[in-house]
Structures are given as C-alpha cells and as structure tokens.
C-alpha cells in the first residue's frame, strides 16, 4: 500500500495558463480518493502527473514519502485507466489485459489465471479472443479498466473509467469497484466529472476548478459544508439555488421574501449588507415537512418536471440587476450554469418535492425552508461565511 503526496505542484503546458495550479494534497495508504470538477479543470493532467507521464513545471510528487517527481512511469509502478481507453489495437482483448503482466515478468500461468479472473469480473469472458476494433465503446472501456485491474500496482489511477457505460452497467460496475477496492486495498485515485460518482465512491474527494483545489473533504462534508459557492453549485443535483439577499436585524430579505431567522442562523454580516444565499432544491419543502421554525415562501410554479419519486418545481423570483453576474462569478462552472434565467429581472429557482404533492404550472405553492439549511457566501469571490 502506498501513500501519495503533492507539494505545490504547478503544471503549465507550453507556458500557457496553468492547467494545475499550486496543488498540495495528501492521499493516504489504501484510500479511495476522488478527483472531481468540470471539464478542462485539470483532472486528467493531475492524474498524468501522478503517473509520471508529465513532469510538473514546479513542485514535487511523493510516493510513500519519497520524491518520485523525476521517476518514469515504469519505475513508479502505477496502473492507469486512460480517459479514451488507449487499447492496443493490434492485440486481442486477452493480449491487452495481460500485457502489463507480460512486460513485468509475471509467470505465464499466473498471468493467464489473472486475465481470466479479471475478464470474468468485468463480463469480458467471451471476448478474450476478439480484436478491439470489433468492440463497442462500453466494452472497450471495460477492457481499459481490466488492463489496470489485472496488475497489482502500488496505485490505481482511473480517468473517468465508467463514463461510457449505460446507466445500469455503471451502477453495477461502481459496486464491483468498491468491492474490489475493499478486497485489494490498493490506493486508488479516481477522476470523474459525475458528482454522483464523487458522492458514492470515495472516502474523500477533491474538487478542482481551473487547476486550483477548492476543497478536499469527505463527500458528505462537501455536500453539507461546501467551502465556497463553486463547490456548493457543483456538488448536488439539481444544483443549489443562489440568490443575492440583504441582511436585516432579524433575518434576511431574499428576493422579496421576508425570512425571520433565529440568531444562530442569521448571516454573519451587518444589517443592510448583501450576502449570497444558497438553498438546495431538496431543502425547499412542503411546509408540513419543513419543521415548525421554518420560513414560508409562497411562489407560483412555472415549470414542473417529474422524476418519478420526486418532482422538480421551478418558480420565478425577482432578481437584482447585477445578480446574475455576481452568481456567475462565484459559481462559474462551464457545464453547470447557476440556474436558468427567464426574461429580464427574474430568475428560476428550483424545489425538489415528493411526486405526490399535486401541482400544475400556474398554481400557487407554499414552500418552506429550515433556517439551518441556508448557506451563506461572500458576494465577491463566493467564500463560505459561517452563520452568525
């Protein structure tokens, strides 16, 4: 088992903007560590730095406490699942799975047994003799995964290894991965842009944005206490609602709603100042489900989306002239806009309520939010503000 460390690692391709910007991290022995962030934030680059495929522009990479920054991938002895598979096209599936074993001199009998075992685990048993050109995308991805799993390296580095599987297979592969990790206990760094995977898989996750580390914490902590508005917007689905509010002596003025809050849940800013408020859609509930000190909001439903067990209700609230820009700056994540805006001066917020609450577009709905469920962020920069 191997621990991995990064100290002030910066990676600049051709002197352009840093793809990884001053990242320091400690990944413990045997940990299942998830790297998550939007497209282009530097996840693959970070993984390549760990594998030794890139040399950092500055900073050091450690494995088990010793500096491996200058070591080639071969000497680091890690296994990697590449984002676009990198399957050897001229070898059979079996040849691909066994290549790392062959190169590293594992005896033939043992190698064959391990290839067999991995193939059965990943449902590739019938494909061992096939050529990669005859496989589907999902099958290729499983071969890529199998090639790594067949080895017993110091660490697994996986770059979005499940992204091309159908939903059902993905769920079962996730379970297989967890079991495998429990059984082998090999340190694993797992890259994904899927926040469901980030929530379910790892013991800890790191959120990246434009090459910079935003927060490293257990998934539940990321969800419950996001370090800033970006993490808050990125973790959770549908994403957190944001609105610019004005603090008052006894609570908040939030987009025209008058929220009276007990002292311990008031925003930590002086009355009259602005604060960015975040509310998760699942915290906007029917009044009877929200508890007795909840704040009531009466809204008009504009759009309804049924998810089966739950439904999403979108409702417009008035918006300050510069609100969209403030929220975008604080939560900017290319593939997850902070919330759809309708017309000028209004934005849509989202509530997630049980499907049995009967609502039609145009209906007036009573919602409520627990004072403890309000997240406060600085309007400039989006850093988390602990409630007063």
């Amino acid at each position, binding site marked *: 088992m191997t621990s991995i460390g990064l100290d002030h690692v910066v990676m600049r391709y051709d002197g352009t903007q840093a793809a990884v910007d001053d990242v320091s991290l400690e990944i413990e022995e045997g940990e299942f560590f998830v790297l998550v962030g939007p497209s282009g934030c530097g996840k693959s680059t970070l993984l390549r730095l760990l594998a030794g495929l890139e040399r950092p522009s500055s900073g050091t990479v450690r494995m088990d406490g010793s500096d491996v920054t200058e070591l080639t991938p071969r000497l680091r002895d890690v296994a990697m699942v590449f984002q676009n598979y990198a399957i050897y096209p001229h070898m059979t599936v079996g040849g691909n799975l066994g290549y*790392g074993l062959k190169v590293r001199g594992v005896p033939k009998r043992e190698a064959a047994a391990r290839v067999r075992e991995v193939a059965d685990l990943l449902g590739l048993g019938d494909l061992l003799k096939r050529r990669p050109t005859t496989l589907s995308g999902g099958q290729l991805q499983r071969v890529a995964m199998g090639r790594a799993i067949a080895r017993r390296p110091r660490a697994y580095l996986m770059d979005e290894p499940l992204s091309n599987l159908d939903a059902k297979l993905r769920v079962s592969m996730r379970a297989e991965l967890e079991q495998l990790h429990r059984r082998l206990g090999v340190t694993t760094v797992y890259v994904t842009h899927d926040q469901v995977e980030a929530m379910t898989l790892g013991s800890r996750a790191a959120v990246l944005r434009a090459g910079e580390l935003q927060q490293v914490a257990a998934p539940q902590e990321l969800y419950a206490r996001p370090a800033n508005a970006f993490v808050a917007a990125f973790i959770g689905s549908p994403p957190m609602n944001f609105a610019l509010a004005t603090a008052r002596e006894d609570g908040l003025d939030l987009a025209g709603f008058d929220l009276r809050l007990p002292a311990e849940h008031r925003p930590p800013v002086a009355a009259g100042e602005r604060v960015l408020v975040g509310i998760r859609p699942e915290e906007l509930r029917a009044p009877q489900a929200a508890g007795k000190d909840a704040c009531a909001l009466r809204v008009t439903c504009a759009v309804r989306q049924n998810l089966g067990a739950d439904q999403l209700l979108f409702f417009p609230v008035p918006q300050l002239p510069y609100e969209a820009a403030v929220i975008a700056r604080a939560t900017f994540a290319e593939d997850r806009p902070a919330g759809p805006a309708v017309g000028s001066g209004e934005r849509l917020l989202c509530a997630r309520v049980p499907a049995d609450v009967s609502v039609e577009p145009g209906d007036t709905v009573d919602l409520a939010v627990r004072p403890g469920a309000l997240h406060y962020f600085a309007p400039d920069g989006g850093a988390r503000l602990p409630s007063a």
Partner: protein
Amino acid sequence: MKRPGAVPWLFVVPAAALTLLILLVPSLVGAAYAFTDWDGLTSPSWVGLANFTEFFDDGSHVVGQTLILAGLYVVGVNAAGLGLALGLAHTLRTRHVLRALFLVPAVVSPLVVAYIWTFILDVDGPLNEILEAVGLGSSAQPWLGQRNTALAAVAIVMVWQFAGYHMLIYLAGLQGVQRELLEAAEVDGAGPWRRFADITLPLLRPALVIGTVLSTISAFLLFDQVMALTGGGPSGGTDTLGTYVYEQTFVNGRYGYGSAVALLLVGGVCLAALVQMRLLRGRRS
C-alpha cells in the same frame, strides 16, 4: 451491404482498356521475342528456350549482384527512412525544416545525384582527400573502381537519395500510432525498446509492407544510378539485371535474348512483391 451495381465499372473500364492497349498488349508481343534470336535487323527465327538456358548458364552473376544490391538497398533505405521518421515525428523543434531537407535528394534526378557522387567518390575526389587529411590515407581507395566497394557505393548512394522518400511513408504510418498507446505501454512497464517492438512496429506494419515492396521493385529495376555511377563496371562487376538487359539488347543488339531476361525480371519482381506482401501483412484484423 448494398450491391454496388454498374457504377464502379464505369470508372474501371476506361482505365483498364487503356492499360490493356498501351501496356499489356505490346508487352505480350515483346515477350514473344524472348523465344527468338531476333537481332533487330534480320527476321527472327524461333529458338525455343535457348535464350533462357543461356541466361541460366552465363547470367547468374548478374542475378547475384542484383540480389546483393537489392538486399543492401531494401534494408538500408527502410532502416534509414524509419529512423528519420522516428527522429522527426514529434520531439525536435526543427522537424518541419528537417523533413523537407531530407526529402530534397528524392526529388532530384537520379542522374544528377549520381554525377555528384561520382565526383565525391572519385579516386582524387573529396572523400579520399578527407581520409588523407585526417590521417586515414591508407583506407583511401578507388571506391567505384573495384567490384565489392562499387556495389556497396551504389547501394549507399541509392539509400542516400531515397531515405527521405521512405521517411515520408513511415511518417504517415506513425500518424496511426497514437501517443497514448505508447504512454499506456510505458505505464504498463515497457521500456523504450519494448514499446518500439510491441507497439510502434506492429502498428507500422502496413507502412513496412509498402516501404519494402516499393524499394524491392525499384532495386530490381535499378538502372539509371548504376549506369551513371559505374556503367556496370568494373568489368561487369556492378551489372544488375536492368543494366544487363540494356547492354545485351541495345549495345549488343540481342533483342531476343534481352527480351528473355527482361521477362524473367518482370516475373521475379512480381514474385518478390507477392511473397513480401504475404509475409508482412500477416493476419488481417
């Protein structure tokens, strides 16, 4: 799959007809002379296989020389081309300029190249002068004037001229070797040599087939360079099938005999190309 219908024939027929008319028919007519003693003046008379038996008795040294030259050239030009391509595929910043530079000799007329090299390799030429200047005067020699160095010299000149051309073939082939495959092999534990042997080389197989077949054909048909460098000398020591056919046919006026040798040459080239394609293509995926 949909059946192609008549359209492909529209494209094939004109080209096929032209080939048949101006290439195949005259060739076949010419081939008939191989069985005669035609000297270009008197009317030919049938001699059966006499031309062929004569060639097997007298011409075998030419076959040997052609094979040696072809062997040296095919191995040399493909190794050089592959080496240049590997060197200029990614890393060097000046690679685009260098690629163009290495290609220049291939677009110069073989005759011009040959005259440049006859000058360089002359007994009193720059090569020997340099050897003397650095104190290796004892290894200075008439490079083109003795059989064994002359054959090697012709091969080297040919390799020098066409290495750039083969570099192009291998550069195109290397486009199919994605960098990530090499990276995956590196992470899997393969060193540089292993990566080349296990990943690069197998993926270059189509390019290797093309490079080998093309260079074999041109080595077998080799004519201008030998003619310009050595004229087949010294005393026939660098004669190849190409120059031999020319001498016998047009210098000695033995049209029948020349046709017979040329016919064997065409057969040999076809056979060699077929065998190579078979060997190198391997299983088709």
